[in-house]
């Protein structure tokens, strides 16, 4: 009992001494009030410590926890100012997303427009036109990488006649076909994923499309959309069915 009392008194004396030294060390008067408040609180806590210990067993650990939580929290909450690089990176990211969305929209719209145009001008039933845009680094505008025209299977023979008119003039251009084939294989690689069609089937489908139609479609696209004919691939819908 006496030991405990002695320890308590020693604590109080030490804390009061500490407070006195702090008061002495202070550089100026303006801080004194604030420091005295804190020192007074610490003295109060020391005097109260037996009461606290009686009330709540481990008040020392609670005090430590309180201090630790308090000292740690400002570091965790500290707001990190984004650097210029971060902002620029975010801007690039947003711009890329925006471009991608714009490209997707453009592809869809172009495809619709091309379907309408081809159907109007040649009378061929077009199932779909897929436009692939490619955007090179630093280029403001996307360029058309490839246009894949998928023809519907049920075409009327009479429609072919309009296309057949062109054949007479441009039959020589058949020689172009081997040049285009690699591009078509590329398209097949992207489309073949869902259709899982082997490449030779695509070539078969390719060959099944008559040259006349192909040429007609190319000329339409070149006239209306000024697309380089070598970028246009035409296929029958057989490739997608298989």
């Amino acid at each position: 009992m006496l030991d405990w009392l002695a320890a308590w008194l020693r604590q109080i004396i030490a804390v009061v001494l500490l407070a006195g030294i702090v008061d002495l060390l202070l550089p100026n008067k303006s801080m004194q009030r604030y420091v005295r408040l804190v020192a007074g609180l610490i003295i109060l806590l020391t005097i109260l410590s037996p009461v606290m210990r009686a009330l709540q067993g481990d008040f020392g650990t609670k005090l430590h926890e309180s201090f630790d939580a308090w000292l740690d929290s400002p570091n965790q909450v500290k707001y990190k100012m984004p650097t210029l690089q971060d902002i620029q990176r975010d801007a690039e990211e947003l711009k890329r997303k925006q471009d991608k969305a714009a490209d997707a929209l453009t592809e869809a719209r172009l495809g619709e427009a091309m379907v309408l145009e081809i159907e109007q001008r040649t009378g061929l039933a077009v199932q779909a036109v897929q436009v692939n845009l490619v955007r090179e680094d630093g280029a403001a505008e996307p360029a058309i990488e490839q246009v894949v025209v998928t023809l519907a299977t049920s075409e009327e023979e009479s429609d072919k006649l309009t296309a057949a008119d062109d054949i007479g003039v441009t039959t020589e251009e058949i020689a172009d076909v081997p040049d285009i084939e690699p591009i078509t294989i590329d398209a097949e690689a992207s489309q073949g994923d869902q259709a899982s069609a082997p490449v030779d089937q695509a070539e078969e489908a390719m060959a099944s499309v008559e040259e006349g139609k192909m040429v007609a479609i190319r000329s339409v696209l070149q006239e209306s959309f000024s697309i380089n004919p070598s970028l246009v691939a035409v296929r029958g819908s057989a490739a997608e069915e298989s």
Partner: protein
Amino acid sequence: MDIIQIVGLGLIAAVLTLVVREQKPMFAFLLAAFTGLFIFLYMIGKIEAVISVLEQLADRSGIPSIYLKTILKIIGIAYIAEFGAQIVRDAGQDSVASKIEFAGKVLILVMAVPIIGVIVETVIGLLPAGG
């Protein structure tokens, strides 16, 4: 002997500052600031002895080390804030200096928050629960 060196340094700095101030007030300020910084850093090493004595005292009397830490932090904040405020005041920016002092006071009060929290908790615990 340290005090003689420091007083000598201070006197020289003061005379030089007076001389230079006529021509270049900017350099006078820099000179004063540097002298102050030098003395501050020179003396901060000596304080170590005082702090170790305080630590021993705290150790032997068995007060929680957290008290000593808090008190030392308070002293450090007070000194650094005061020092910075004086340099800024030398430069003629009283308003900025008073803001620095304000920041020092706020940070000292922040140190008291965990202690206040524990005391308040205890007082609440003293009250009979539920009346």
